[in-house]
């Protein structure tokens, strides 16, 4: 799992590339934790996420919790269909605001 950080205006865009499973989750969690801003805005771009295990689901939830505690608005963007299915089936998707594309996600955060 590779995490790439970019700024689009005031919004932090984190792109997660690869598989988020029990092997990669601890490192990913640690990196994401350092990148979530305080009172900010963040888009998690999952377009490159090829697999999400239950450990990965928990990384998502942890990020959600951390963002909430930091007063930061969080959007999931471009979630692949099979990852979306897993998140939806487990109910984890309900925690998030989801947009089809990163651009759409940026638009949500600008409102």
């Amino acid at each position: 799992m590779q995490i790439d950080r970019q700024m689009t205006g005031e919004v932090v865009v984190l792109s997660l590339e690869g598989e988020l499973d029990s092997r990669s989750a601890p490192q990913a969690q640690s990196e994401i934790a350092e990148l979530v801003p305080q009172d900010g805005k963040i888009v998690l771009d999952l377009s490159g996420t090829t697999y999400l295990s239950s450990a990965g689901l928990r990384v998502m939830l942890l990020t959600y919790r951390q963002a909430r505690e930091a007063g930061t608005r969080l959007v999931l963007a471009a979630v692949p269909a099979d990852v979306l299915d897993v998140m939806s089936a487990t109910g984890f998707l309900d925690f998030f605001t989801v947009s089809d594309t990163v651009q759409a996600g940026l638009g949500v955060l600008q409102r």
Partner: protein
Amino acid sequence: MTTDNQLDFTFSDLIAGYVVEHDPQRGSVRLRTSDGRTFTARLSETMSAEFLRNLGDPYLDASAHVPDLLTPGRHVFAYGVFSPPGNDFEVKRLVFLGRRPGEYNFEEPNWWVRQLDELAGFYRRAQFGDGPIDYADYRTTLRLGGDKTDVYVQETDTISRLIYGMASAYMLTGNEDYLDVAERGTGYLRDHMRFVDRDEGVTYWYHGIDVRGDAEHKLFTSEFGDDYDALPAYEQIYALVGPTQTYRVTGDPRIAADIDGTLRLFQRFFRDEHAGGYFSHIDPILLRPDHESLGPNRSRKNWNSIGDHAPAYLINLFLATGEQRHAAMLEETFDLICEHFPQQGSPFVQERFHADWSPDRAWGWQQDRAVVGHNLKIAWNLTRMNAIRPKQAYTELADRLARSMPDLGSDRQRGGWYDVLQRCLVGEENRHRFVWHDRKAWWQQEQAILAYLVLAGHTGDQDFLRHAREAESFYNAFFLDHDEGGVYFNVLASGIPYLLGTERLKGSHSMSMYHAAELCFLAAVYGRLLIRGEPLTLWFRPSPDGFPDRVLRVAPDVLPPGRVKLDRVEVDGRPYAGFDPDAMSVKLPDSTEPLTVQAHLAPARD
């Protein structure tokens, strides 16, 4: 000298007592309470008199027989009015508990079986009507008459408790519709409420789902105030209640797999490897008991996380499987109870602890307060445990709690058992104060009944039997809702139903057929097999792929060794010889269809 608080006004109340003498000339009866105090009651011309009746039975008028019924030794309830001066008591309602002194209607062999049948019918109709069983229609919240509300939540634990009730009802009655409710419910939990974590190799259960609209909204963490945003142990424990009881009946390997997955959850994430026992909560993301987000639930242990495994599912799992690993887990939990729960300074057990077992007396609503029913539950389950792995510590603590609780936690005037009391006396106090009220809850009556029945059954102690009968009397006289069905959540101290707020409901986070059904099932087992020496038939429906080695275990509960045997077996209505009477097990024939097994149990003759 103050003249405040003079009781110079009338008030209604209840006396539970045994007839000492009846004076027809004066129209009065003298009663002795459970703790030996006497009252003289005037019999009113306008009083009603009735016999105790079961759910589904018509009102049984006794008014024409009152003079014949008021014989010495008879146990009665007298509801009436105290009036000044001198606290004159005029009876307005008499309840006779049996036809003859020393007889109790609830000791009729099929009393508890019929009651469970009525309960199952009530909840079946309330949740699914008379038609097909579709759990999409299930609702946790049910009104007094069983109607649903506009609350769309389906809690995992309440579904599981309903499943338990229905599986138990099948075991006692053989009514396959009840088993159908149980099996479909188990499947619904599996399909909608279960999370299989393949990374960690464990199974855990959602708190519930909200089914408003077209899509279901899963409630991952607890929505209940005490446990908000955490995974409490007790919710995972009670998710297993119904499926485990169903597993006893069918042996469905899918249920076994889910139980094992949840046991791995307990062992890997709730267990305290250093100080022993199980933590009460873990955080939902990292599955850690020490996460700071847990707040006052962080690194804590409580009665639920230590002691509730046994009655909720673990004893039933041991009964179904005979596996020693379950006996070992039971032994560990009861050893911890004996070691840590009794504390100096209070006759009631301590229920909440920090990780190192130091008492937590500052937690939420509990503070330094006793739940009477938990003390009784410990006595009841220690006695059961002693039948699996006998230990002096188990019987000593059970005996000490059982002998002390009547004076501390029961109402010696009116009958029944109280709710939550202060654990310690303050200053010159001579009774433990009520924390919130003096109402009596249905589930706490159950703990008393089962504790004293099982102790009477194991020991033959007549004092225990008397306390069991007094508790059974109060419960059956005042908790059965003859108008709407089901049982009342709470009654006032005097036995009048309390019907306000959530305590009005027949279905809620707290009530869902589990305690009322468990009471019926085990009161029948203990009363018939252990106390009165009567046979009992249980029904099972093993599936074609059910039970490893095709061995069906039919012991009704963990009983004193050698007291009960399997007398006869029928498979699909025909006598079957392949069983072990002492082990109470049946070697099932191979089959491509589910089998119907009737296990006829009887007291073992010397």
